[in-house]
């Protein structure tokens, strides 16, 4: 699919600016239906141990989301050290036939799932050196984001609020600082709760939004996926269109101020 406003990550063009996770759906049918409704071309997956000796014949996620149709973004969710994250992504690359686009996240704390930035930076350096195209989950600290970009990450992905919280865009000012300085795509990677949050992220100038729970935990995930697709598109168009300036406490009518049938009323008010 070509678009005249593509998202470009690691040299590859994508028409959709919505990236979705594939976790926490009722079943694979619902996962597939939600991904289709979202229009996402990039889908995140987790890397986990197989259940040895159990259900060798059961269907897998890859049967429902064939790697030929989607760009996979294997993640390092659950990793708390740089070493574990690097090992996980080396295995992901082997699993996905040399695929290099990955999502790095090194967590610091199971309560908040906040990123451990020193470990994240360490893992990013190793992965970039090994030829991975690293999209990196990070704090909304412009200095950390810049460091990650300098290391060679292909996208920086600050949290908007805590992973899975649905609390929305809590610090638009920090996101703006990151967006304004970045020369690689900036994605909001966590915290979106509903469609307006996604639109706000895009209006701020984010290049794309990555979400999972906001769709999978909605009462109707497929309908929410459709809403998110529209919100991301609307937010992008609003950003490109450029919003009107804010005029605090200074009204300006949209209709002509002349030719009113009761000009006396204006004179009286003035």
């Amino acid at each position, binding site marked *: 699919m070509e678009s005249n406003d593509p998202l470009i990550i690691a040299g590859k063009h994508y028409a959709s600016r919505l990236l979705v996770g594939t*976790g926490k759906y009722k079943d694979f049918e619902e996962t597939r239906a939600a991904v289709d409704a979202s229009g996402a071309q990039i889908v995140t997956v987790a890397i986990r141990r197989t259940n040895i000796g159990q259900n060798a014949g059961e269907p897998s996620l890859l049967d429902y989301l064939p790697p030929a149709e989607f760009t996979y973004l294997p993640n390092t969710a659950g990793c708390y050290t740089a070493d574990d994250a690097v090992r996980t992504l080396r295995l992901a690359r082997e*699993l996905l036939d040399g695929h290099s686009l990955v999502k790095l996240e090194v967590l610091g704390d199971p309560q908040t799932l906040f990123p451990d930035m020193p470990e994240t930076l360490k893992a990013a350096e190793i992965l970039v050196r090994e030829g991975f195209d690293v999209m990196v989950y990070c704090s909304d600290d412009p200095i950390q984001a810049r460091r990650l970009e300098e290391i060679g990450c292909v996208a920086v992905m600050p949290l908007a609020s805590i992973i899975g919280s649905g609390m929305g865009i809590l610090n638009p000012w920090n996101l703006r600082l990151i967006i304004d300085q970045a020369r690689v795509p900036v994605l909001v990677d966590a915290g979106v709760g509903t469609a307006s949050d996604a639109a706000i992220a895009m209006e701020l100038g984010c290049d794309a939004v990555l979400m999972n729970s906001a769709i999978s935990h909605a009462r109707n995930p497929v309908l929410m996926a459709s809403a998110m697709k529209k919100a991301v598109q609307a937010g992008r168009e609003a950003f490109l269109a450029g919003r009107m300036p804010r005029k605090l406490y200074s009204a300006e009518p949209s209709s002509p101020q002349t030719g009113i049938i009761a000009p006396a009323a204006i004179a009286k008010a003035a």
Partner: protein
Amino acid sequence: MNTVNFNGQDWPLPEPVTVRTMLERIGLADKRVAVERNGQVVPKSRHTEVVVSDGDRIEIIVAVGGG
């Protein structure tokens, strides 16, 4: 008894086998999985060469739903 640690659990290993044979015995030979032996990825092209022996730590992973 020789043992091999698969995904964090010890299993008996009657004799050293190749990674390929190991995958066949546990029914994963034709599945999309990736294998790590003692912290190093074993590329698919080397599954018939690399031997799993006593005390090895093997990880076998798949892609699952995640965000």
